[in-house]
């Protein structure tokens, strides 16, 4: 734990770990407050904000899956299974709707299943993001798709969604992305290195639930307080590494803690990257085209190919920025996009003689001993 200021940030961010409780608090005193959920890895939350609603990340968790077994087979990833379990238990009933991105076959199909089974409870809508990101046609297509989704949201919420409100939402989301980027830069300092991977993930994940008007000042104030960190005399310990993964969901905090307890120090990661990747989106001009262009210009991930920047190039950038000695591929069990990417990514790392290891996880941490042995052995090879 680096300092008291960071403890305060963490505490505030942890208020979002129960989204239902956070939403209830957020609603207090607001006129006709609405919340729209979105499934990771990327949905343009600017649309939700512009429609006057709170975007809320729909994340899975360590929950015993029982009801969802009637809808989904056992060998589907634990993320889809746990999220559906939450939905069946009414956890998302406070949401007006949920937007899905077409990130993998399981998510595409589960969104259809939700539409068929839960439409009476809330809106279920797919944002049909394009497969290819490297053509102008993709940008034009996505802009038109975003207009369609905006219309759906506007009708559902009974509110107009103007171009100006969308521009304001872009500006607000730009601030979220900018402050998260600054937070990542702080994390690479000796003082920031005292924050664990679980801490960093708590802060970034909170950005998918907390109202941006609350989240941005929280982080900006904290980062302003770190100006004197260089004189803190703190030294970072552990072997510096990068963690890369799809991160529709994260492992349990006990699992994340294995990184530090194994002698590793995560200096960079692309977890939750879907929501961070777009960088700064142009505010002036056609807002739909601008969002589409921001998405198209972002680097590749396991769920989006044909990008101008390939995924291994992103990982290499992350390594260089943090001075990492190795890479851990953190992959949800049964995650097809990640496992299909792994061979290519490891090949690229091995060609450059970069040590790397793949660790898989499920929502429920269960037995973490084998993962601990793998991470410790990896740390030993890097030491």
């Amino acid at each position, binding site marked *: 734990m680096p300092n008291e200021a960071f403890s305060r940030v963490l505490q505030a961010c942890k208020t979002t770990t129960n989204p239902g409780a956070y939403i209830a608090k957020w609603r207090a005193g607001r006129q006709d407050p609405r919340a729209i959920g979105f499934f990771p890895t990327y949905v343009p939350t600017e649309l939700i904000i512009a429609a006057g609603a709170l975007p809320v990340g729909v994340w899975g968790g360590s929950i015993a899956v029982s009801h969802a077994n009637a809808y989904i087979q056992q060998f589907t990833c634990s993320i889809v299974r746990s999220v559906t379990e939450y939905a069946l238990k009414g956890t998302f009933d406070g949401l007006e709707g949920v937007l899905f991105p077409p990130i993998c076959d399981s998510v595409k199909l589960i969104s259809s299943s939700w539409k068929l089974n839960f439409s009476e409870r809330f809106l279920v809508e797919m944002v049909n993001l394009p497969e290819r990101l490297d053509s102008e046609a993709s940008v034009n297509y996505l802009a038109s798709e975003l207009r369609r989704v905006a219309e759906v949201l506007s009708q559902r919420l009974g509110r107009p969604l103007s171009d100006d409100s969308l521009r304001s939402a872009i500006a607000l989301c730009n601030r979220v992305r900018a402050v998260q980027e600054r937070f990542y830069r702080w994390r690479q300092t000796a003082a920031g290195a005292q924050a664990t991977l679980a801490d960093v993930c708590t802060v970034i994940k909170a950005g998918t639930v907390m109202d941006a008007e609350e989240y941005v000042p929280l982080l900006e104030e904290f980062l302003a307080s770190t100006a004197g960190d260089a004189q803190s005399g703190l030294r970072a310990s552990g072997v510096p590494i990068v963690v890369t993964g799809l991160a529709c969901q994260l492992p349990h905090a006990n699992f994340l803690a294995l990184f530090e307890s194994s002698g590793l120090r995560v200096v960079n990661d692309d977890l939750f990257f879907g929501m961070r990747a777009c960088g700064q989106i142009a505010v002036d001009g056609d807002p739909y085209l601008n969002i589409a262009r921001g998405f198209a210009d972002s680097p590749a991930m396991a769920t989006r190919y044909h990008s101008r920047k390939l995924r291994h190039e992103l990982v290499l950038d992350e390594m260089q920025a943090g001075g990492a000695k190795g890479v851990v591929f953190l992959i949800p069990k049964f995650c097809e996009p990640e496992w299909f990417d792994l061979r290519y990514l490891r090949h690229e790392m091995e060609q450059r003689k970069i040590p790397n290891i793949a660790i898989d996880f499920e929502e429920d941490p269960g*037995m973490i001993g084998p993962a601990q042995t793998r991470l410790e*052995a990896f740390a030993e090879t890097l030491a």
Partner: protein
Amino acid sequence: MDVKYFAGIDIGSMTTKCALVDASGTLVSSALVPSGARIRVAREAALDGAVAKAGIVREQITYLVATGYGRKRAEADGQVTEITCHARGAIYLFPRTRTIIDIGGQDTKAIRVGANGDVSNFVMNDKCAAGTGRFLEVMARALEVDLEDLGPLSMQSTSPQRISSFCTVFGESEVVSHLANGSEVKDIALGLNEAIAGRVVGMLRRVGIESEVTMSGGVSRNIGMRSCIEKLLDCPLNVSENSQIVGALGAALIGREQWLAREHKKLESSDAQ
């Protein structure tokens, strides 16, 4: 009493192994005991066994490194993962080793090593016991043969009974149903060894196979399994009579190095003063 020895304890799910090396880094003795439920008891028993065989006293053990799944709970001067320890132990026994396959009671490991014993890549099986010593133990029980007889028995077969389940519970049901259908025990034994060998070689391919290949762990005593893996790899396996203590041996050797490094540091700091 002044002669120093270094101990490595490998606390596995089924067996606890202890190896002792002397100050020159030469293996002097080893012992194996069932792990049981109490790690401390197994540690003491394995250590006592190795000490007795070496004809030394416990006080001569200068440094002890624990490895294996029980390493965190064992009293020791250092703890090192079984991956690193197996690599070091295999290189000691077979210096030209570049690939290691270890099949223990609870897990299977495929490890790539450099000439100095440094690990360059590794994979481990998942949390279930598919294709491990425990799997074979359950299957031997279903076949009503001793675990030690499974290998020689399988060598008598020319018509393996294909086994498709890797889950230990389903595998046992499959074996029982083959027996009920009149399959011969030797054919089922060969089918089991072939199934596990295929899985193991698949793991080896994930780390890349480079000769020489050394096999360690309790399952390396199964001659039928060795034969199946050799056929799939199309190359001979190095298997030492000490194949079960490779991890403990590596731990002892690493313990010696850690102690030497510590002593060297002490000397340096006293010189500086």
